[in-house]
């Protein structure tokens, strides 16, 4: 469900006199949400910001025929995720060739002086951030977009087997990261 103000903003987008300020209000309110949704899948700040710009520009272009059935926030995040997936497909990112990352990832965590202060959440956050990019993409699609193996395989144009392998690898890296702090 969408709250009142969002519906108002969307309806103001339809009127030439208020369209620009409505678009800016929408942008201010949700730009960072869209960036985070994209960044979870593509850990590249500049690329995430480009994709978020595209999302809002497209809303602007389609403002007269916009049909948002979910909440506006969910709609915008979904649009960002879809664009991120298109980007991955268009750039034919290979999903099998980054095994060398694993050791590198593990050697990062040697600042063990503040073990006490590190709670599980911090360790997990840091470990996700350090996942190999393709592994990170597959993991995020499962974790945050709640896609099935089959859906991830279809969206990334890879095999279900590859999805399974990347998931196994992601969990192993997270486990080792947590283990290292015990």
């Amino acid at each position, binding site marked *: *469900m*969408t*709250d*009142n103000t969002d*519906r*108002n903003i*969307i*309806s103001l987008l*339809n*009127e*030439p006199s208020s*369209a*620009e300020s409505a*678009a*800016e209000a929408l*942008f*201010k309110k949700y*730009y*960072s949400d869209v*960036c*985070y949704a994209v*960044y*979870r899948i593509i*850990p590249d*700040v500049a690329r*995430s*910001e480009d994709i*978020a*710009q595209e999302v*809002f*520009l497209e809303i*602007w*272009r389609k403002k*007269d*025929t*916009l*049909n*948002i*059935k*979910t909440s506006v926030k969910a709609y915008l995040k979904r649009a960002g995720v879809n664009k991120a997936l298109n980007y991955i497909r268009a750039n034919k990112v290979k999903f099998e060739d980054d095994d060398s990352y694993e050791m590198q990832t593990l050697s990062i965590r040697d600042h063990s002086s503040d073990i006490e202060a590190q709670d*599980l*959440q911090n360790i*997990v*956050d*840091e470990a*996700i*951030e350090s996942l190999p990019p393709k592994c990170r993409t597959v993991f995020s699609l*499962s*974790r*945050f977009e*709640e896609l*099935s193996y089959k859906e991830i395989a279809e969206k990334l144009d890879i095999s279900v087997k590859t999805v*399974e392998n990347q*998931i*196994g690898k992601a*969990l*192993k890296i*997270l*486990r080792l990261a*947590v283990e290292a702090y015990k």
Partner: protein
Amino acid sequence: MKEYFILQLLHKQFTGQLEEVDKSLLSDWVSQSPENKAFSDSILKIWQASANFAPPVSFENRTESALDRFRSAIRQEAITPATQESTILEQPTAKIRTLTPLKWISGIAASAIILLSAVFLLDKNSGDNSYASLATLSEQKQEIQLIDRSTVWVNEKSTVKYFDEVPSKERKVFLDGVAFFDVEKSDKPFVIETDNAVITVLGTKFNVNADKDGTTVMVKEGKVQLQPKLSNKHIILMENMTGIYEVDTKKLYRKQASSYKGDSWIRGGYSFEDDSLEDVFSVLENHYNVDIIIQNDDLKKCVFTSPVYQDSTLESVLDVMQLIYGFNYALKDGIYHIEGGSCS
């Protein structure tokens, strides 16, 4: 090799993708030794923590400069205004009116102002048929007369997309939110598609409450079929029956009630007589188009009798119930959480 395999099985279990054959394999492995159990528990903890992943970058700080970029981008776009006025003029058939509680159900308010503040769009691109859309705001209800002479009452914060030409095959409507349908009999099936289920009828009266978490149908008259989208199972619902599909548990089930309360929100008033709190909360969810989660299972079975609440706010009703049952309620992320409480 082995570890990868176990991790994959665990992940499948967490995401509900574990196949029947692997279930016993995994549970056997887990119960084999305390170490295995500890391993599986620690992976679950990691998986749960990963849901709250917060990346070490702040996009909030970058919004201002990004906004400048966006502003110059949209100013470069050629502006081709299609005003709301012209959109309405193109809208040929379906009649819409804003509902004033109490009056409109009798049809007295038939001349009420058209399109007070609803967002109204025409979408000519959905396949062969032409559809129109209506989205209601908070505290706004709308009645739509469809061209087959069926009537749809749309509750607040809901979106309906409906056929606005005589359809060749089925009469199709899309719904996110709460609506009551009075469907005119026809040999063309009337089909309501929600995010996660499909409801099929020929001619009848019933209420639908649909969002991404599930679809609930309450039948007032006639016969209605409810089918989840990703399933070939369906249930048939008759008078005073409620059919429920829950997305997260994939449960599809029905309940029989002694009286009909699915359209209380149209009249603005409702009352309860020895109704279980589980049923009471589903009436409130429907009436105010909100989500309510009862944390305490024992509370669901308590019975509640009330005077007629007419145009009351949800909070005022919850406050009364809170005094009786001693529960706490809190609005978190748009969902009302009911915690604690007991029947006495």
